[in-house]
């Protein structure tokens, strides 16, 4: 294993996990859109980096035999925004991807990197709630999968253990219907002040999640049930009140807690 430079570029997941297990201070890096920005700002100084962009099994979107969708962690935002497999209720994921930052960042950033970064203003986390995704994690020796709601633990804190990485997302078979991602930001492409992800099946089932109003997206089975029974302005308001009761927003450069 070379000590200099401390940039590892494994070609297989197995190799990547071995390096991460054997190099305690190593950080995985994928598109670099968040980590390199933090390095440039002097916020982090990783002892070693493990680039995950050359591992074929981590990239791309696959349909499984049962109709569920697997999105590899190293799939770029631009690929997700353009993917035709993400139809029906899963369209919310592509719609969210299309609103991340600008073209050049969408060509770099990856869904796994974004979700692992767990910034509360990110676009994918609420969309992943709206499609009821599971997060696939891998470390040596074990793999596991968590419901998206169990992945986010606190501000910028996830369920990832040292040496563990996000390898993909399981999206249950989309239903006929549609999905929408509405983002309220200062300018196009900025982090969300508040965002709403909604998947709406033709059979009436609705799933909603709100971003930017706490350490993790806000979601509630009660709110989903209300919206699934009726989409009137009145139920939307009452579902909003249920979600608002869960909110724990903070003041930041994009807006105050009260505004959120």
């Amino acid at each position: 294993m070379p000590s200099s430079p401390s940039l590892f570029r494994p070609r297989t997941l197995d190799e990547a996990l071995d390096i991460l297990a054997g190099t305690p201070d190593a950080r995985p890096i994928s598109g670099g859109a968040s980590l390199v920005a933090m390095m440039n700002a002097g916020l982090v100084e990783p002892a070693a980096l493990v680039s995950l962009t050359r591992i074929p099994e981590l990239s791309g979107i696959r349909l499984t035999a049962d109709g569920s969708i697997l999105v590899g962690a190293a799939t770029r935002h631009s690929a997700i925004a353009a993917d035709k497999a993400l139809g029906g209720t899963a369209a919310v994921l592509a719609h969210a991807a299309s609103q991340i930052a600008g073209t050049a960042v969408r060509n770099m950033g990856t869904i796994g990197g974004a979700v692992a970064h767990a910034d509360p203003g990110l676009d994918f986390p609420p969309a992943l709630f709206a499609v009821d995704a599971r997060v696939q994690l891998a470390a040596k020796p074990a793999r596991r999968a968590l419901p998206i709601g169990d992945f986010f633990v606190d501000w910028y804190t996830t369920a990832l253990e040292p040496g563990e990485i996000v390898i993909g997302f399981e999206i249950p078979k989309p239903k006929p219907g549609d999905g929408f991602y509405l983002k309220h930001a200062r300018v196009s492409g900025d982090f969300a002040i508040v965002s709403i992800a909604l998947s709406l099946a033709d059979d009436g089932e609705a799933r909603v999640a709100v971003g930017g109003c706490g350490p993790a997206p806000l979601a509630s089975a009660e709110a989903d049930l209300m919206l699934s029974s009726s989409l009137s302005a009145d139920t939307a308001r009452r579902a909003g009140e249920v979600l608002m009761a869960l909110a724990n927003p903070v003041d930041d450069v994009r807006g105050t807690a009260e505004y959120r």
Partner: protein
Amino acid sequence: MTQPVSVMLKVNGKALTANAATPDTLLTVLRDQFLLTGAKRGCNQGVCGACTVLADGRPVRSCLSLALDCDDRRIDTIEGLTGQPIMQTLQRAFIAGGAFQCGFCTPAMLVASFALLQSNPNPSELEIRRALAGNYCRCTGYKKIVEAVLDAATRLPAEESA
């Protein structure tokens, strides 16, 4: 974090050798070692877009790209793209339309516009605004920039067949 090592990068069709440590970005190497100063260091955070270059033909942020991780990619900067007919058309349209104020964002605006016109030779104003949404003009001269790209798009077929 590490000692610099020698790395060969494919930039503007040439194989160029740089010395880079792991945290060194493509932008730093382009500007400080290859003296290709068209890509600018604005925010160094991936927000302003002034560092935009093409990697394998698609716009990326050179300030967020690790130089050592780019050795298997084809990098094109404004300096290399200037010989291309689409870029020349864009440059003429920017000049004719006065699509500059201080000029700091201009190379990246041209690179991003080039990538747009390559994939979509006849974009609407909205498509242009979307494609350039990640490129900031601190002088706020967006109107003339968008108009210049629209103008360039109308001139592409004639120039290419000429």
